[in-house]
């Protein structure tokens, strides 16, 4: 089994009309055995910037720690919050620093910049970024997630519709993957604020 599939997990980020959404499942496992059902993989960096980290759980936590530290330092130096684009670039170079002994994690960056324009970016484990206009997925069941998002996505959804589509995509896709599931958490980021909901799904 690949090292990126040791702990399992799935993350989707999707763009809507003046909003973005990001969601992840809640399972933490050791290959086949499930160890925790409350392991969130999406972390808040600023009010309007979230990052989802899939892959090896220890690297997910280490990277989250490192990113929080770097963003706080950025805020002290520049006296403003980091923008999603700059954050993406920083994460990309952090991952590439470890090119020959990488962080085993594939992140998804999702946020609204200062003008409330959406920013979505996915990366591989050594930092190569892809900027999307519609959705980005990462995790152990990327094929399932891609299929679902491709089928259900439409442009310019409002926050409620975005929530429904994100939830259906994630839940249906992880139900076909043994290593992901056990509930989901969805964040919808709008200019007015963020709405977070936790979903219960098939507990197997």
């Amino acid at each position, binding site marked *: 089994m690949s090292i990126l599939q040791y702990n399992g997990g799935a993350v989707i980020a999707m763009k809507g009309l003046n909003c973005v959404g990001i969601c992840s499942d809640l399972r933490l496992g050791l290959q086949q055995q499930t160890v925790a059902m409350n392991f969130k993989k999406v972390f808040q960096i600023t009010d309007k910037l979230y990052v989802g980290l899939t892959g090896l759980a220890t690297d997910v936590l280490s990277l989250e720690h490192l990113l929080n530290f770097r963003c706080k330092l950025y805020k002290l130096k520049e006296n403003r919050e980091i923008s999603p684009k700059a954050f993406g670039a920083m994460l990309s170079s952090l991952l590439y620093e470890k090119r020959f002994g990488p962080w085993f994690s594939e992140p998804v960056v999702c946020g609204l910049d200062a003008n409330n324009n959406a920013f979505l970016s996915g990366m591989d484990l050594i930092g190569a970024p892809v900027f999307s206009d519609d959705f980005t997925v990462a995790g152990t069941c990327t094929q399932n997630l891609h299929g679902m998002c491709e*089928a*259900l996505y439409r442009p310019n959804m409002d926050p409620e519709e975005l929530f429904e589509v994100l939830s259906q995509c994630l*839940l249906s896709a992880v*139900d076909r993957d043994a290593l992901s599931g056990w509930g989901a958490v969805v964040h919808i980021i709008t200019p007015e604020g963020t709405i977070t909901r936790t979903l219960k799904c098939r507990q197997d």
Partner: protein
Amino acid sequence: MMQYNQQKVNALPIWTSEGNVDLPLSDVSLDGPITTPYERRFNPYDFNGGTTVCIAGNDFAIAAGCTRMSTGYQILSRNQSKLLNLSNKTVIAAAGCQSDITVLNKTLQARYLQYESQSQKIMSTEAAAQLLSVTLYYRRFFPYYAFCMIAGLDENGVGAVFGYDAVGSFKRDQYGVMGSGQNFIMPFLDNLIGHKNRLDEKKVLTVEEAISIVKTAFIVATERDIHTGDSVEINII
């Protein structure tokens, strides 16, 4: 005491039908009088790609397959059918190795003709399902590289879909997907036809809705899967 020569290599270059590969040294012991034999091998299977989808309704069944046949990263044909009309009530859809599928189809057609002439009736879908299962298991130790599905109307006129693995174990379902686009399409059908993770009321599926679901499913798979594309052949029973 005799000293044996120890070959200092990191990996052995081995030729296979996919090209040169390196046999890792951990699998091989080369020093001493006992050495692990290694051999050039011919891989009898090839994956020709493609996706097939089958859906069963209350009084209809749909079998669909994309028409692309590929090997590796190359396209061999844009117009190769994956569906076999066994009778006017049963269609067999198979993805995998095209040569194995062709032989399997011919075997089934021959057995079908024998059945029809001996028992003087059209083979029912359930009987065809059992026949396919037995045919596949016959080759348990050198399987047909064919991932099959049967779509048809059962004895009561209700739609039926049977899904198989490569050695013949089968089960009746309401829908199924096989092939390279399986992971992309399966959760989509779970959501729409299986009505999973949904709280609204389940409605009866009509033929038009099912056809439009099949078309959407193939668009999804074509966008993201390199082995699926060109055109889609849909058989409605």
